[in-house]
């Protein structure tokens, strides 16, 4: 299936990310009604966590539990990326010994988890959010500051 109209957004690892056909259709037809921003939660320090508080604008669109589950899974994934443990220390030491040239061949653990996150978000969009006229933007595209939830107008739902 040909993926229409992709400019090819460059991710950190240089891969092109393709939007699914259904999302493109939705974006073509629907106008953006509003955007909600889920801010970062700094109560655990500087690790990347997002607030799980359910925004009021989404009350009519999605189940509270569902949304909180998504954010909680995201938080867990980011925690996994930044986890300090044996494997991350090993990677750090190995990288130092090879003068960081090893990263020309392999990805850092963080980058691997970011890819996992991108896949998770796409999956969530396809299964849960797009049918409800919502769209999650990967936080990495917003500098890990916010999770941007785009709310589309209702007429896109009747397909």
């Amino acid at each position: 299936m040909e993926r229409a109209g992709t400019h090819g957004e460059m991710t950190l690892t240089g891969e092109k990310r393709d939007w699914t056909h259904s999302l493109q259709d939705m974006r073509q037809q629907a106008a953006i009604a509003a955007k909600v921003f889920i801010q970062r939660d700094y109560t655990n320090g500087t690790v990347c966590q997002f607030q799980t508080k359910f925004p009021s604008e989404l009350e009519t669109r999605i189940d509270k539990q569902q949304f909180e589950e998504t954010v909680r899974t995201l938080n867990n994934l980011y925690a996994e990326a930044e986890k300090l443990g044996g494997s991350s220390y090993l990677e750090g030491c190995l990288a130092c010994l090879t003068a960081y040239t090893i990263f020309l061949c392999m990805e850092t653990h963080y980058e691997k988890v970011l890819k996992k996150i991108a896949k998770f978000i796409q999956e969530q969009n396809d299964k849960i959010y797009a049918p409800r006229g919502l769209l999650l933007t990967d936080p990495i595209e917003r500098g890990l500051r916010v999770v941007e939830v785009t709310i589309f107008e209702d007429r896109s739902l009747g397909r």
Partner: protein
Amino acid sequence: MLHLRVAEPMRECEYSQISTRSSTPMETPYKKRTPKRRKWQAFPGRNKFFCNGRIMMARQTGVFYLTLVLILVTSGLFFAFDCPFLSMQITPAIPVIGGVLFVFVLGTLFRTSFSDPGVLPRATPDEAADLERQIDVANGSSSGYRPPPRTREVVINGQTVKLKYCFTCKIFRPPRASHCSLCDNCVERFDHHCPWVGNCVGKRNYRFFYMFILSLSFLTIFIFAFVITHVILRSHRYGFLNTLKDSPASVLEVVVCFFSVWSIVGLSGFHTYLISSNQTTNEDIKGSWSSKRGKGNYNPYSHGNVFTNCCAALCGPLPPSLIDRRGFVQSDTPQPIPPTNGITMYGSTQSQSHMAAATPLLQSEPVILTDEAFLPGRTSLGGPCSGALPLGGHPTPPTSTPNLSCDNDMLPLRNEQSDGLRHHHTDGGHHHFLTPEEAPSPPGMLPCGSPLGHSHTIQGFYNPASQDSLHEDSVRGLVKLSSV
């Protein structure tokens, strides 16, 4: 030429708003005509990019070249003049170890200087508008001439930390982040701006910086010790004056190393202390977590023991760059859309009054600064900024630093515009802190100190108190460092 560039991207914006990412035959040939720009070319901060976005440095790189020259010359002289004698008389391991140290020093220096220190990308217009709305709601109606300072408090591991709002980047800064006035970026876990490496030192390059100064300490001590050994051994045989005649370079090396040792070893010691207590230079200078501030004051970021702190700082996971320098600028990524279009799109659910409050912020930006201006704003600024604005009357001074870019067409334009901005801010009347680090640069190039100089002279959102104190502290940090 300038007008043409403004016209095309503006039109492109309008088309993409109607149908995002579609490939109608009408649109595709149009899109093929416009050249693809990489994100680094539209980067709003005051940085220099080389090799098509792979290398990122601060604007002032003069001192970095000095550092490089000092290291190369001293090491070169050591290998050329002292090593032959030493390898024969003592052991050939000396040049080998010296060589390894030298390579390590250069490697870590380049890594520190060329990598992204952890720059936080600026908020998209939507985010900025949303935050503005939240702040307005929180503050109620604007109370008189000076609105209250924009801060948020958060409790981290039992300590109350204030998050400050950055007027330039339009975000609430994460804890430990700070806005570097020289690079005009918010940097995560901002340590300091180091002119010797020509870059900020932040979350992503702190470990390289530390390894650089540590290995440089070893190299300096190594060279110093062995040059002295060389001179002494030679003097025993041929006399002191003859030694000086045969190997004049040794004198130069000794002098350079002697003066470097104190500062570099001192700096290494200082940063070893910082790493073991998990503090940044900023925090240490301000005494944020010192027990002198209060009984219950402790560092909430520390992991508890020295070993974990060191491991975390040096061997912890390396976060990737958040600014995606080499990606292409998308026509439908959030860019400062003209206010009229903005209202049309968001008018239905957001209240008109809030949008009206937000749009003056967006509206005045293209006039004053190039923060979020990607394609349209940046090029259109060249005209109004240098000519029409009442503040900056005279022409901008030329940059003194050489332009080593691999792509030459974009950079001169960027530098000029940034110079124009900085120059008009100097006239804006905000006080500036001239540190020793800024002294090497030509006098006309005073960096525009306060980030709040940007939109506030017109807006009235003037908040000198919190911004200046943070500024003063980070600048004081620079001063203190230079005296180490």
